[in-house]
Every structure is written in structure tokens, then in C-alpha cells.
């Protein structure tokens, strides 16, 4: 699907390879849209010389949706990277970077298209390895080394879980084909399914970055080049979501309702903790990485809600919840792509990721500032932008959980929903901090004074994403057929209840309506009109009735002293109150290192040191080992 050609000549190769990427992803975009609309599933087989090694590519609405998502992000990111690579990596190994870039996209596409567990695993690991290569691309820095190691190890642990679950599936079905996995669920006892579910959840959750398996994410994303971070954060971690959806709904159904509750619980934990971690960060890319963790939590919330509905046979509601999660995945990929590309622009101009060293960039990079502002608004889920629509849907699905019978679910539904509100409030705080730290105020260091706006293609790439964020926020109905097809496919909604779905979820150009009893409704276009009307009303009012004098520019008042950059609140200071009030929740990242991972690692190391004397170097003792092994084995016979 994506062509892989890299030309050796540097700047030409950037343009050429990215144009290839654009063309290829446009093609895959179109094909995925077609397959989503037609709801076709078809499989392509290629025989390879292994017993399980049939190359099966299956495209069904779910994978088509993810292909759609990947391609949609790849196009602007490729445009962006034309300029980005030229400005940043010209003296480095461009050819390698471009090849890896293509391979990365290809592996992501193949992951979601795989119709075979074995092959899925291979591409899954390939995707990890290639992104790992990006993480360590800056081979001289210690930071990227550590990030790379943690990334590699964590994802490998995740893959081990996956491997185990695939093998258990393989045992029950006698094949690694997904189509046979699909039929396996009836054969398995519930307890085994639960084990599988947990394996899958932890396996994919590591990739998706659920707390506490997220530790690789805030390290790996900053270390990679920015256009790659955009892809990693935007779509790569979503393949984890894809895996969870694919397994839970396709292979493990039916399942008990507590699975869903568990996922909701994990989702809200991830969302809250992820964003609280972000609040104290001052590295722009780490902030974005943590915010990705939060958004994964939000996505998992509606996935969990959908699972709960599904286990109560509320297929229609399950579909709606899934629509919410898929929609939020898509939206997150767009605005996170936007934010990462903007961050890349900033870093490429100022050569620092520390927002405490920036400030006042809005005067030097107005376009980037505008794009970043829109991205921030979208990620905080403010109305008019895409994040709002999907988060709104997530809210609604959580609230509809109240319709179910068990009191426990009734109880958690509003609480979880309000906690979701809490995360988005903190998110707003975080992005106010980030945006104002980078772009507003007086420049904090000299390096900011001479920066210039980034190249045209970089802004074009981010601009497309901005436009998409806005358009989806205002006219989301365009996307709903795609979302609905993908979601209803995976939930197994038959066409007879499709009408039911229409009743429950009405989406048209004017509004989105949920529930038959006017449960909730929203009208993005109307909001836009109202806001514009309000804006112009007050604007014209102040123009007509207000003073006609021009705005006078004076120095900022600072008790009579010339204002200096040091007078301002630093981003750290900005988030200090948050840090104080959430000091209980604010388990810093090191908490996981100190209490979960380090004990294991240190235990292993100290065990290793303790066991070292066994290899004492004394020949006689070695002979004793052999002898003991012999005696014990002989004793084994008698057992």
C-alpha cells in the first residue's frame, strides 16, 4: 500500500519520499473509506514458507477505520516533515530516516490489517522496533538511550503477554488465523477467557500507555523526532486500542460485565493520573506525551462503557459507546498530531524543549502560535473543536450507564463522568500553562529573540490538521457513517437493530441527538453561530459605543519597576497550586519507578550479585555441581 522508495540525494529524497508517503496514504485513505462505506471484509492471502506463515491481510470496517485514521494523520505529517527534516536532520542520515519512516507507516498499517495472530505479532514487534530506532536515532545522547531501553523493555513485556494469549488461542483453535480466533470463544471456559482478557489488556495496554504501564511513553516520545512523535502518539498507541477492541469484542465475547467495569476503572485512573503528571512537567514533548496517556484513558472509558453495555446485551448502546471511543481516537490523533508538529516547529527553531526557557514566541512565530492555540483548545475539549464532540459523546455514554440495572454501575457512572470533567479541567490548566509558557509573556531567554517563523510546508502540515480539528468540531456528521459502520461491525450489530440505532443516535447536519427521550443533544453548528453572533454583537457594540481612541501601548505595570522576564510566573510556578492541592494524587513518575519497577529490577540485580559466587572459578566446585546434578537426576528416577 505504501511505496518504499528512497533516493540518496538528501533534500530531494525528503521531498520525494514524503510525496510518496502522501500519495500512498491518500490511496489507502480512499480505499479505507470505500471499505468502510461498503462494509466489505475481504482477505488477501500470500503463502510464505512457514506452517503459520500465511500472509493474510484482512480489511474489515474496524481495521479500515484504523487505516483511515493512520492515513489521515500521515498525509499532513508527511507534508510537515518535508520542511521539518530539511531544517533539522539535513546533516544526518536522511535516507535511513525516510526508509524507517515508510517502514513505520507500513508496519502500522499491517498491524491493523493483519488477519493472522502470528503475523500480527511480527508486525506489532516490527512497529515497536522501528519506533525504537526512531527513539534512539539521536545516538549520542544518554537520554535517548535510557528512553529506548525502557521503551523496548516495556513493550516487550507487553508483547510477551500478547504472545501468551495468542498461543492460548492457537491451542484452542489450532490455527493463528483471526477468523478462527473468532470462533474460539465458545470453546473456552470463562476463567481462561478472563486470563486471556487480562493478558490482552496488559499486553495492548502497555503499548497504549495505561497507568502504571505507561512509563516508557513520556520518555520515548520526547526522544523521537517530532514528526515521528506525532505518529507515535497519534496513531501508534492507538493500535493498542485496536488490539483491545479486536480481541475483546471479536474474539472473547461474550464476557462478564466486570470486564467492562475494570476497563472503565483503568481508563479513569489512566486519564486522571496521566493529566496530573502532565501538570508538573516543563518539557513540552513530555507534557504532550502525558496528555496522550490521559486521552488513552478517555478512550478506554468509552471502550469500557461499551463492554458493559455489550455484556448486558445492549448492543445499540454498545455501538454508541464504541462510536465515542473510535471518534475520540481519531480526534486525538488529529490534535495530538497537530500539537506535536507545532512542538517540533518550536523545538527546531529554539533548540530547547524546556518551556521555562521560552516565552513570548507569539510575536516571532504567530502562525505556529495560532496553530498551537487551536490544538490546545481542541485537546482541552472546548466547543467548536473536534475534541469536544467526542468527549461529549463519552460523557453521554457514561451517563447512559445509569440506565442499567446493577446499583454499582449506576453509582460509578456519574462519578466517573464527573472525574472525566475533572481531567479535562486539569487538561485546560496544563495547556494554559504550556501555551502561555511558550508563546506569551516576555521571552525568558535570549535564544527566543531571534527565532523566525518555520517554513511553509511545516505550517501547511499543521494547518491541515488544524482545519480538520475545526471542521470535525463543527460538522462532525460527515464522519458518523464511517464511525457507525466500524463500531456496529465490531459489536456485531445486525441490520435489524440498525433502525434502533438510528432512533437512539440521530446525527444530521444540524445536531447530534442521543436517546429517544431527548436525553442529550448538541448542535455544533448552532454553537458556532451563537458564538460568532455574540462575538460580533459585542465587537460592534464596543466599536460603536466605546471610546474611539486608539489603543495605547505601555509597559506592563509592575509596581513601578521595568518589567523583566524573571518577574513572570514560570510554568513550574503556574502549576504549583495544582501540585499542592493534588499532592496526594500527584504521585510523581518516580513513584512507579520506586515502588513497582525498581524493586523488581533491583531485586534481580541483587539476586544476580548474590548468585554470582556460584560461578566461583574453583574447578572442584564445578565438579561438585556436575556430581550433584547427576545424583539428583538419578534420584528423580526413583520418584
Amino acid at each position, binding site marked *: 500500500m505504501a511505496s518504499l522508495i528512497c533516493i540518496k540525494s538528501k533534500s530531494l529524497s525528503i521531498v520525494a519520499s514524503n510525496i510518496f508517503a502522501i500519495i500512498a496514504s491518500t490511496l489507502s485513505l480512499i480505499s479505507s473509506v470505500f471499505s468502510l462505506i461498503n462494509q466489505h471484509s475481504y482477505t488477501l492471502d500470500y503463502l510464505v514458507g512457514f506452517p503459520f506463515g500465511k500472509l493474510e491481510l484482512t480489511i474489515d470496517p474496524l481495521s479500515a477505520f484504523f487505516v483511515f485514521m493512520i492515513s489521515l494523520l500521515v498525509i499532513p505529517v508527511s507534508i510537515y516533515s518535508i520542511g521539518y527534516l530539511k531544517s533539522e536532520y539535513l546533516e544526518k542520515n536522511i535516507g535511513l530516516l525516510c526508509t524507517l519512516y515508510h517502514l513505520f507507516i507500513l508496519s502500522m498499517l499491517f498491524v491493523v490489517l493483519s488477519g493472522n495472530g502470528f503475523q500480527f505479532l511480527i508486525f506489532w*514487534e516490527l512497529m515497536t522496533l522501528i519506533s525504537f530506532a526512531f527513539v534512539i536515532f539521536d*545516538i549520542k545522547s544518554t537520554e535517548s538511550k535510557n528512553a529506548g531501553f525502557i521503551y523496548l523493555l516495556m513493550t516487550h513485556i507487553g508483547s510477551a503477554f500478547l504472545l*501468551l494469549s495468542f498461543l492460548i488461542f492457537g491451542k484452542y483453535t489450532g490455527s493463528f488465523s483471526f477468523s478462527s480466533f473468532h470462533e474460539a470463544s465458545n470453546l473456552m471456559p470463562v476463567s481462561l477467557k478472563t486470563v486471556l482478557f487480562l493478558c490482552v489488556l496488559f499486553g495492548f495496554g502497555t503499548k497504549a500507555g495505561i497507568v502504571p504501564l505507561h512509563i516508557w511513553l513520556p520518555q520515548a516520545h520526547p526522544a523521537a523526532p517530532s514528526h515521528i512523535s506525532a505518529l507515535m502518539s497519534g496513531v501508534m498507541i492507538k493500535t493498542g486500542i485496536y488490539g483491545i477492541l479486536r480481541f475483546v469484542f471479536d474474539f472473547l465475547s461474550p464476557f462478564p460485565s466486570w470486564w467492562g467495569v475494570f476497563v472503565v476503572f483503568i481508563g479513569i485512573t489512566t486519564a486522571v493520573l496521566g493529566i496530573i503528571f502532565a501538570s508538573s512537567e516543563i518539557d513540552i514533548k513530555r507534557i504532550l506525551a502525558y496528555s496522550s496517556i490521559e486521552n488513552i484513558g478517555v478512550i478506554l472509558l468509552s471502550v469500557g462503557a461499551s463492554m458493559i453495555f455489550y455484556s448486558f446485551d445492549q448492543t445499540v448502546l454498545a455501538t454508541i459507546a464504541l462510536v465515542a471511543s473510535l471518534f475520540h481516537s481519531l480526534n486525538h490523533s488529529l490534535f495530538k498530531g497537530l500539537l506535536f508538529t507545532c512542538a517540533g516547529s518550536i523545538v527546531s527553531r529554539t533548540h530547547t524543549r524546556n518551556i521555562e526557557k521560552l516565552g513570548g514566541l507569539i510575536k516571532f512565530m504567530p502562525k505556529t502560535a495560532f496553530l498551537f492555540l487551536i490544538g490546545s483548545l481542541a485537546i482541552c475539549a472546548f466547543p467548536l473543536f473536534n475534541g469536544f464532540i467526542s468527549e461529549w459523546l463519552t460523557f453521554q455514554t457514561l451517563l447512559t450507564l445509569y440506565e442499567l440495572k446493577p446499583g454499582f454501575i449506576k453509582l460509578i457512572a456519574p462519578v466517573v463522568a464527573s472525574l472525566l470533567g475533572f481531567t479535562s479541567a486539569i487538561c485546560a490548566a496544563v495547556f494554559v500553562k504550556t501555551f502561555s509558557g511558550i508563546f506569551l509573556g516576555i521571552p525568558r531567554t535570549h535564544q527566543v529573540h531571534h527565532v523566525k517563523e518555520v517554513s511553509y510546508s511545516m505550517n501547511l502540515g499543521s494547518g491541515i490538521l488544524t482545519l480538520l480539528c475545526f471542521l470535525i468540531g463543527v460538522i462532525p456528521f460527515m464522519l458518523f457513517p464511517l464511525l457507525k459502520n466500524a463500531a456496529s461491525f465490531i459489536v456485531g450489530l445486525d441490520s435489524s437493530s440498525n433502525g434502533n440505532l438510528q432512533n437512539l443516535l440521530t446525527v444530521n447536519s444540524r445536531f447530534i441527538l442521543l436517546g429517544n427521550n431527548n436525553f442529550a443533544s448538541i448542535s455544533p453548528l448552532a454553537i458556532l453561530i451563537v458564538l460568532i453572533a455574540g462575538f460580533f454583537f459585542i465587537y460592534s457594540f464596543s466599536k460603536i459605543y466605546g471610546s474611539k481612541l486608539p489603543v495605547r501601548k505601555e509597559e506592563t505595570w509592575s509596581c513601578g519597576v521595568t518589567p523583566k522576564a524573571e518577574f513572570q510566573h514560570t510554568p513550574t510556578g503556574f502549576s504549583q497550586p495544582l501540585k499542592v492541592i493534588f499532592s496526594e494524587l500527584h504521585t510523581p513518575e518516580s513513584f512507579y519507578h520506586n515502588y513497582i519497577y525498581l524493586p523488581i529490577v533491583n531485586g534481580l540485580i541483587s539476586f544476580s550479585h548474590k548468585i554470582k559466587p556460584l560461578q566461583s572459578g574453583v574447578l572442584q566446585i564445578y565438579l561438585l555441581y556436575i556430581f550433584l546434578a547427576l545424583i539428583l537426576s538419578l534420584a528423580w528416577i526413583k520418584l
Partner: protein
Amino acid sequence: MDINKILLLYSIPALAGFSVLLPKNKKIIGLLQASWMVFSFILALFIVKDILSFGFMSMFNNSIYLDALSGLMIFLVTLVGTIVSIYSISYMTNEVEEKIQNIWKLKGYYLLLNAFVFSMLLTVTVNSMGVLWIAIELSTLASAFLVGYYNREAPVEAAWKYIILCTVGIAFAMIGIILAYYAVTHVGGMKSLGLNWDYLVTIAHKLDPDLMKVAFVFILIGFGTKAGLAPMHSWLPDAHSEAPTPVSALLSGVLIKCGIYGILRFAIITNLSVGNDFSNKLILFFGLLSIGISGIFIITQKNIKRLLAYSSLEHIGIIACGIGFANPLAIFGALFHMVNHAMVKSLMFFTSGNLALKFHTKDMEHLKGTIQVMPVSGTILLIGGLALAGSPPFSIFISEFYILSGGIEGNYWVASILFLLFLLIVFGGLSYHFLQMTIGPLNNNVDSNISSTKYKMSKSGVVSMLLPLVLISILGIWMPAPLLKLLNEATKIVTRGHMI
């Protein structure tokens, strides 16, 4: 015609051994050796082809017996031999240039190398278990000189331990063989054929199970010492780390697999005699122990070659687990793993050898950020390290996958999960060390060392490193039909011992 081929195969090491004595130029010696080995490899391919078309062949009054299993091993021995010979050209030339050794020592090296290869070829082709024993012992004696090649303190120590431990181990194996032979004579088997593998297989069901159990334990411990299964592995890190790099590759790549081969041959007979469970569980236990111990030792390892040696221990453990899981899938995986491990481990030893030549140290504390100094070797070290640790898309992952799936298929839940856990630990350790070595800032202390060395990798060095790399990458995604057939046939031979 077959006889000619196998005779030729035997005689190549001999011929090579003599021919390397003649020339004076060190390069020509190396090239000569390499071309002989390439020739033997081609010959081995023909032999394998014959084996595949005939099923099995026995000749010389039944003293040589070739089936798919031995075909696989011949393939492996000659392949690794070839790669090692190619690598030796650049490595040894460099050593001579750095006055670490002289031309006569070089000739001695090649002579011993050939003796070593010969003994291994003998090991995998003979029919009689007794001769197999002799051949394995011969390989110990031949390789001991190679291990202690540098004649300094550490290599001598390593060689001494190697020779003593392996000989003691092998002595135990002798007891096992005696017991087996006794079992044969006891049931009135033909004395002259009593140790022939093909004969043993036919009468295995008649043999006294208790006796065979005892015999198998002795064989397992004996050949297990040679194979380097924990806790009999103690010689392995010493020998691997002190031997010249090409020899380490040969030791790790094929020698320890010859031990496994011995165990495997005997396990087939034992299984036919006493049933499936006994031998497999024992092998599985030792396999898991090996992986676990290697993981623990890898974590805090400081010497790169010892690290690789422990990784060999791990892989031997993996192979043993594959055999122990006793499932066609797992055994296929184990046999495939032999090939993969031989490739990757040679690759890794070569790379580490290059680093050692450049940095004059094997201490990983000083080997940091090597990718900046040696881009090719560093990159290969990283990729190879990942492959070694079992990352897809390299073939090691595939074989481990097969082994694990075999384990799960056979309901070895605890063992499979332990297997996975240990592999994770090993993965963590290996990836940590390899990342430390390749990525990141350079260690300041070594700067002066680097500038003083004029080591530059020659073409043959690159070829010898690229060859295994390409092979494992290709095998990771596509397996050629003959190899598949060979592995399948070999699997059938091994599973023949599994009771129905």
C-alpha cells in the same frame, strides 16, 4: 556416489589442515582455508539434498548413518565453519599484524580448527553411539588447544577447566553408553551392532526401561556438560570468553549443539523404551534452569564475551526446552533454533571481536557509544543484540515462538510461563547491555586507545558479518523449502521416539 561425497567431506578438513601448512603468506592461508570450507559447505548441501531424497543413508558397513537430523547438523557445522573461516581471515591477519602471534602459530590455529571441524563432522555422522562419544571427546581435546590458544594465564585457565570438566562429564556419558549397551546385550541383541543408533531404535521397545532411565541420566549429564546445560555449564563462560573470537563462534555455534545432538539421539531411544515423559521432563528441567541462570548472570555481567557465553547458555536452554516440550512444533522450533542461534551467535562474537580489537578491552564499562566509532560493527551489534534477545522479525523469534507454542500445545503451562518470564529477564539484560554499548556518549577513557589502533575491518570481515545477518533476517520472514523439509524430516525423526 554418496560414499564419495561423505569421504570427501571427511577429507576436506584433513586436506585443508595440510594445505594451510604450505603457504607463507598469512592472507593466502586464510583464503585457502575459507575456500576449503566453502567447498565443504557446498558438498554438505549436496549431501543434504541426497538425504532429503533418500530419507536416510547408511554406509561403510553401517558405521556411518545419515538422516535428516545429521543432515541438519552437517549443514550447521559446515555453514558456521565457513563463516568462521571467512572471519578468521581478517581477524587473524590483524592479530598477526599486531604481533599478538606469528605465522607458525597461525598455521597451528588453522590446523586445529580443521581438526575441530573434523571431530564435529564425525560426531554428527557416525552411527555408533560409542564412536559418537569418541568424536565428542576428540572435539574437546582439539578445541582445548583453540581455547587456550593465546597461552596467557586466563586462556590457559579456561582451557584447563574446559578440558577437565568436559572430560569428567563425558566419562559419565560413557557410563550411560555402557549401560545402554548392557541393556542391549541383556535382551540378546546383536553385540556387534549393539551401539548402532539405527539398531538401537529398532530394538528400543525391548530394552529394560529402568536401565535405560539410568543410562539416560548419565548420558544427559555427560553430554549435557558438553552442551553446557546448567548446572554443568561452568566451563562455558570461561572457554567462550577466552578463546579467540572465531573459535568462540564455533564453540557456541556448533560445538555445544553437538552435545545436544548426542542427547537428542539418545533421548529418542530412551523415549521408545521408557515412554515420553521421563526424558522430556528431565531435559525440560535442565533447559529451564539454564535459561533462568543465564538470565540472572547476564544482568550484572561486565565482560562482553562472557555475556555472549551466558546468552549461549540461555539459547541452549531454549533448545533443551523445545526438546523437552516434546511436541512436534516445539521440536521443530528447537531444531530451527539451533540454526538461528548458530548464525546470530557467530555474528555477535564477530562483532564483539571487532570491538575488542578496536578498543583493546572486553570490559563493557569501556565499551560505550561504540556506534560512533564503528558505525558498521556498532549497528550490527545492536541489531544482532536485538535478534539474539528474541525480537522479531528475526528468525530467533520465530523459533522461540514455535517452542513456546509447542509448550502451550503440550499443556506445559507452568514451564511455558516460566520460559516466557526467563526470556523476558534475558531480554531485559541483553537489551540493556547492548544499548549501553552501542548508543550514548563515548566513554572518555578510551579515546586514546582508539586513536592508537589502526584496526580497520576488511572486506572479509564485513562479508562474514553480513552473511549471518542476512540469513537470520531472511529466515525470519521466509523459509526456503529445502530447509523446511529438512527440519520437518528431522522433527519426524525426533518425534519418532514419542509414544503414541
